[in-house]
Protein backbone atom coordinates (compact mmCIF):
# COMPACT_ATOMS: atom_id res chain seq x y z
CA UNK A 1 0.00 0.00 0.00
CA UNK A 2 2.14 2.86 -1.28
CA UNK A 3 -0.78 5.28 -1.47
CA UNK A 4 -0.13 7.85 1.29
CA UNK A 5 -3.81 8.53 1.93
CA UNK A 6 -4.55 4.83 2.28
CA UNK A 7 -1.63 4.55 4.67
CA UNK A 8 -2.95 7.43 6.72
CA UNK A 9 -6.39 5.80 6.91
CA UNK A 10 -4.86 2.45 7.85
CA UNK A 11 -2.90 4.15 10.61
CA UNK A 12 -5.98 6.05 11.86
CA UNK A 13 -8.18 2.98 12.07
CA UNK A 14 -5.47 0.92 13.74
CA UNK A 15 -4.59 3.48 16.39
CA UNK A 16 -8.18 4.43 17.21
CA UNK A 17 -10.50 1.67 18.43
CA UNK A 18 -13.51 3.55 17.11
CA UNK A 19 -12.91 5.82 14.13
CA UNK A 20 -15.60 7.72 12.26
CA UNK A 21 -15.16 9.40 8.88
CA UNK A 22 -17.89 11.99 8.63
CA UNK A 23 -19.06 15.25 7.11
CA UNK A 24 -18.57 17.99 9.67
CA UNK A 25 -17.61 17.51 13.30
CA UNK A 26 -19.31 15.69 16.18
CA UNK A 27 -20.48 19.06 17.54
CA UNK A 28 -21.56 20.34 14.15
CA UNK A 29 -22.32 17.50 11.72
CA UNK A 30 -23.01 18.77 8.22
CA UNK A 31 -25.05 15.88 6.90
CA UNK A 32 -28.04 14.09 8.36
CA UNK A 33 -26.44 10.67 7.94
CA UNK A 34 -23.30 11.69 9.79
CA UNK A 35 -25.46 13.28 12.49
CA UNK A 36 -27.35 10.01 12.96
CA UNK A 37 -24.17 8.02 13.60
CA UNK A 38 -22.89 10.70 16.00
CA UNK A 39 -26.22 10.48 17.84
CA UNK A 40 -25.80 6.72 18.27
CA UNK A 41 -22.17 6.91 19.42
CA UNK A 42 -22.98 9.73 21.81
CA UNK A 43 -25.99 7.85 23.16
CA UNK A 44 -23.78 4.84 23.88
CA UNK A 45 -21.10 7.14 25.33
CA UNK A 46 -18.53 5.45 23.15
CA UNK A 47 -15.11 7.12 22.99
CA UNK A 48 -14.27 7.72 19.34
CA UNK A 49 -12.17 9.80 17.03
CA UNK A 50 -13.55 11.45 13.93
CA UNK A 51 -12.19 12.94 10.74
CA UNK A 52 -14.02 15.58 8.73
CA UNK A 53 -13.86 14.67 5.04
CA UNK A 54 -15.19 18.10 4.07
CA UNK A 55 -11.88 19.54 5.26
CA UNK A 56 -9.86 17.27 3.04
CA UNK A 57 -10.79 16.34 -0.51
CA UNK A 58 -8.04 13.74 -0.72
CA UNK A 59 -9.41 11.99 2.34
CA UNK A 60 -12.97 12.25 1.04
CA UNK A 61 -12.08 10.35 -2.13
CA UNK A 62 -9.45 8.18 -0.43
CA UNK A 63 -11.81 6.75 2.16
CA UNK A 64 -14.29 5.69 -0.53
CA UNK A 65 -11.60 3.84 -2.43
CA UNK A 66 -10.18 2.35 0.78
CA UNK A 67 -13.41 0.62 1.79
CA UNK A 68 -14.99 0.21 -1.67
CA UNK A 69 -17.87 2.12 -0.18
CA UNK A 70 -19.33 5.13 -2.01
CA UNK A 71 -20.73 7.15 0.84
CA UNK A 72 -19.89 8.91 4.08
CA UNK A 73 -20.16 8.42 7.09
CA UNK A 74 -18.04 5.31 7.55
CA UNK A 75 -17.52 3.70 10.93
CA UNK A 76 -14.49 1.54 11.79
CA UNK A 77 -14.04 -0.55 14.92
CA UNK A 78 -10.60 -2.01 15.65
CA UNK A 79 -9.51 -1.46 12.08
CA UNK A 80 -12.57 -3.15 10.56
CA UNK A 81 -15.12 -1.31 8.43
CA UNK A 82 -18.50 -1.72 10.15
CA UNK A 83 -20.73 0.21 7.77
CA UNK A 84 -22.42 3.46 6.91
CA UNK A 85 -25.43 5.14 8.51
CA UNK A 86 -28.02 2.48 7.55
CA UNK A 87 -25.98 -0.46 8.78
CA UNK A 88 -24.88 1.27 11.98
CA UNK A 89 -28.51 2.26 12.72
CA UNK A 90 -29.79 -1.24 12.04
CA UNK A 91 -27.08 -2.78 14.20
CA UNK A 92 -27.73 -0.33 17.00
CA UNK A 93 -31.45 -1.07 16.99
CA UNK A 94 -30.77 -4.81 17.04
CA UNK A 95 -28.20 -4.42 19.83
CA UNK A 96 -25.52 -5.83 17.53
CA UNK A 97 -23.44 -2.67 17.55
CA UNK A 98 -23.24 -2.72 21.33
CA UNK A 99 -22.17 -6.38 21.23
CA UNK A 100 -19.55 -5.70 18.57
CA UNK A 101 -18.09 -2.82 20.57
CA UNK A 102 -18.02 -4.78 23.82
CA UNK A 103 -16.42 -7.77 22.11
CA UNK A 104 -13.70 -5.43 20.92
CA UNK A 105 -13.09 -4.08 24.41
CA UNK A 106 -14.73 -0.71 23.80
CA UNK A 107 -16.62 0.62 26.82
CA UNK A 108 -20.33 1.00 26.12
CA UNK A 109 -22.82 2.58 28.47
CA UNK A 110 -25.07 -0.11 29.89
CA UNK A 111 -28.63 0.42 28.77
CA UNK A 112 -31.95 -1.31 28.50
Amino acid sequence: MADPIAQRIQNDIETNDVMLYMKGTPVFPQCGFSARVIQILTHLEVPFKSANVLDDDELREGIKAFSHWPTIPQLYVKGEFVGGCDIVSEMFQAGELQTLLKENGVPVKAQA
Partner: protein
Amino acid sequence: MAMAAGEIEALVKAALPDAQVTVEDLAGDGDHYAATVVSEAFRGISRVKQHQIVYAALRGRMGGELHALALQTSAPE
Protein backbone atom coordinates in the same frame (compact mmCIF):
# COMPACT_ATOMS: atom_id res chain seq x y z
CA MET B 1 -28.56 15.09 -11.20
CA ALA B 2 -31.71 13.31 -10.17
CA MET B 3 -32.44 9.71 -10.84
CA ALA B 4 -35.84 8.06 -11.30
CA ALA B 5 -37.00 5.43 -8.84
CA GLY B 6 -37.67 3.07 -11.75
CA GLU B 7 -34.08 3.39 -12.89
CA ILE B 8 -32.79 2.32 -9.48
CA GLU B 9 -35.09 -0.68 -9.47
CA ALA B 10 -34.08 -1.65 -13.03
CA LEU B 11 -30.34 -1.46 -12.25
CA VAL B 12 -30.69 -3.57 -9.11
CA LYS B 13 -32.83 -6.15 -10.92
CA ALA B 14 -30.35 -6.32 -13.80
CA ALA B 15 -27.66 -7.37 -11.31
CA LEU B 16 -29.91 -9.44 -9.03
CA PRO B 17 -32.69 -10.93 -11.18
CA ASP B 18 -34.40 -12.61 -8.20
CA ALA B 19 -34.51 -9.44 -6.13
CA GLN B 20 -37.68 -7.95 -4.74
CA VAL B 21 -37.04 -4.23 -4.86
CA THR B 22 -39.09 -1.42 -3.41
CA VAL B 23 -37.96 2.15 -3.88
CA GLU B 24 -39.52 5.09 -2.12
CA ASP B 25 -38.81 8.70 -3.07
CA LEU B 26 -38.47 10.27 0.36
CA ALA B 27 -38.37 13.94 -0.49
CA GLY B 28 -40.02 13.91 -3.91
CA ASP B 29 -36.87 15.45 -5.39
CA GLY B 30 -35.50 12.39 -7.18
CA ASP B 31 -32.42 12.54 -4.98
CA HIS B 32 -33.36 11.05 -1.62
CA TYR B 33 -34.57 7.49 -1.74
CA ALA B 34 -35.15 4.57 0.57
CA ALA B 35 -34.82 1.15 -1.00
CA THR B 36 -35.48 -2.33 0.29
CA VAL B 37 -33.83 -5.18 -1.58
CA VAL B 38 -34.55 -8.81 -0.79
CA SER B 39 -32.47 -11.39 -2.64
CA GLU B 40 -31.19 -14.90 -2.20
CA ALA B 41 -27.74 -13.51 -3.09
CA PHE B 42 -27.59 -11.91 0.37
CA ARG B 43 -27.94 -15.12 2.35
CA GLY B 44 -25.09 -15.73 4.73
CA ILE B 45 -23.03 -12.65 3.89
CA SER B 46 -22.37 -9.55 5.95
CA ARG B 47 -24.46 -6.39 5.65
CA VAL B 48 -21.46 -4.52 4.30
CA LYS B 49 -21.12 -7.07 1.49
CA GLN B 50 -24.88 -6.96 0.82
CA HIS B 51 -24.81 -3.19 0.44
CA GLN B 52 -21.67 -3.37 -1.68
CA ILE B 53 -23.51 -5.66 -4.10
CA VAL B 54 -26.32 -3.13 -4.42
CA TYR B 55 -23.87 -0.23 -4.85
CA ALA B 56 -22.06 -2.20 -7.54
CA ALA B 57 -25.40 -2.74 -9.29
CA LEU B 58 -25.92 1.03 -9.31
CA ARG B 59 -22.64 1.34 -11.21
CA GLY B 60 -21.07 4.32 -9.56
CA ARG B 61 -24.21 6.44 -9.38
CA MET B 62 -24.37 6.09 -5.61
CA GLY B 63 -22.49 8.93 -3.98
CA GLY B 64 -22.56 10.82 -7.25
CA GLU B 65 -25.83 11.67 -8.96
CA LEU B 66 -27.63 9.72 -6.29
CA HIS B 67 -26.89 11.51 -3.05
CA ALA B 68 -29.00 9.62 -0.60
CA LEU B 69 -30.21 6.08 -0.74
CA ALA B 70 -31.19 4.60 2.58
CA LEU B 71 -30.71 0.91 2.04
CA GLN B 72 -32.15 -2.14 3.72
CA THR B 73 -31.08 -5.53 2.46
CA SER B 74 -31.98 -9.07 3.45
CA ALA B 75 -32.34 -12.60 2.20
CA PRO B 76 -35.90 -13.95 1.75
CA GLU B 77 -37.41 -15.37 4.95
